[in-house]
């Protein structure tokens, strides 16, 4: 019964084994050619590209992570450098203050010594000048007295006059 139906369908629609196998063979060739030379290579390229994109994304993620870590490290280094600089500045300020204090004291001492020395020099100069003036004055008194008295003064007179003049000048 089934065989009869199949035979009837076969004869009506022209289905025979040789024709069927020929069509099957041709489609299998088409399937092989398309798989081997079209879809295979395209799928391979698509897969390769997908892998590259994934790798790229992974690399980008990695770089982003490394960048974030580097940023953290940079911030840390910067913070540490700031702290160190602050400490250095503080030390430097203290050193400067101490140095300037020392220099100030040294300068004050030196200036006091200079003033003292100047004062001493002025005093010795003044004494020298006073002695000079005294000598000149005594000499002048002796010369004047000799002129007024009209005579030549003896060494005794000169000594006495000199002592008197010195006494008056000292008073």
């Amino acid at each position, binding site marked *: 019964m089934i065989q009869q139906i199949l035979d009837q369908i076969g004869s*009506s*629609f*022209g*289905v*025979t084994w*040789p*024709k*069927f196998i*020929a*069509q*099957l063979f*041709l*489609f*299998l*060739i*088409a*399937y092989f*050619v*398309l*798989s081997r*030379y*079209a*879809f*295979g*290579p*395209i*799928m391979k*390229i*698509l897969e*390769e*590209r997908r892998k*590259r994109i994934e790798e790229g994304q992974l690399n980008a993620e990695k770089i982003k992570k490394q960048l974030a870590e580097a940023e953290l490290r940079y911030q840390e280094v910067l913070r540490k450098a700031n702290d160190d600089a602050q400490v250095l500045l503080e030390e430097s300020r203290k050193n400067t203050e101490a140095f300037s204090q020392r220099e100030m004291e040294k300068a004050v001492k030196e200036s006091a010594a200079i003033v003292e020395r100047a004062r001493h020099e002025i005093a010795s100069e003044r004494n020298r000048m006073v002695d000079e003036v005294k000598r000149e004055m005594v000499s002048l008194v002796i010369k004047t007295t000799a002129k007024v008295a009209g005579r030549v003064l003896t060494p005794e007179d000169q000594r006495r006059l000199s002592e008197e003049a010195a006494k008056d000048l000292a008073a």
Partner: protein
Amino acid sequence: MVFPLNFLANAELAAESPGFLRDSFLGWFTNSILVTAIVLGVIVWVVRSCTRNMQVIPGRGQNFLEAIVEGFYGSVESILGHKMTVKAFPLLASLFLFICMADWSGLFPGVGSIGWFHTHNGETEFTPLLRGTTADLNMTLALTAVSMTLWFYWTMQVTGPVAFIKELFGVKGGMTGPILLFLVPLFLFIGVLEVVSILVRPISLSFRLYGNVSAGENLMSTMINIGNLLHTPQWLSNILSVIVPIPFYFLEILVGFLQAMIFTVLMIVYIQLSTVHEDGSH
């Protein structure tokens, strides 16, 4: 106006061999097989032209081809999953491309209309030189045979015979207890229906494609000969034979595409049903 019953049935159901070959050892070489060989040649030529210099960074032509393949690949992958798509995609894409080109090959001028008259059993018959590939049941049966064989192979490979039988006849939904006494016979019956539906698939696939394309050829043939069939004057018949078929050409282009799509989508669904389980695993 009354038309005779055979008004539309003016194309042969079967592919035919040329008269001089019919009784020779090349009697299997039909006009449909000739068109299949031409379609195959075109496919080989197009494929080699497009994929001769494949590059990771594609040119314009390769980019266009890749966009189509990638789109189709993505659609298949969303249904079958990555693992099964890698196995089945070449077959599915080949089926779609081959059926589409085979369907459209029947629309070229000359296919079905250029041939010769000969006398057979005392009657004058017209044998066309070329006949649409998918308008031959041998071709659609061959497509189905390849598809269903690979479907069965992948099902056994991925699911395994025991799991496949369990999937067909087993009680679904994780039911336990006395209720199984009622459910087991019910699911056995459903399993038998499932087996019948699987056995019917090759017939439905092959006859659907053959029927649609064959009907399309009949329709086109009828539209081209509409003037003669309505017994209009010859000059009007000539004009009608050019003008009337034009909209039907567009319809047949659409039908050819849709039939290729339907065949491929049904194969995707069949593979999905037998290889992807309820929990989405393979």
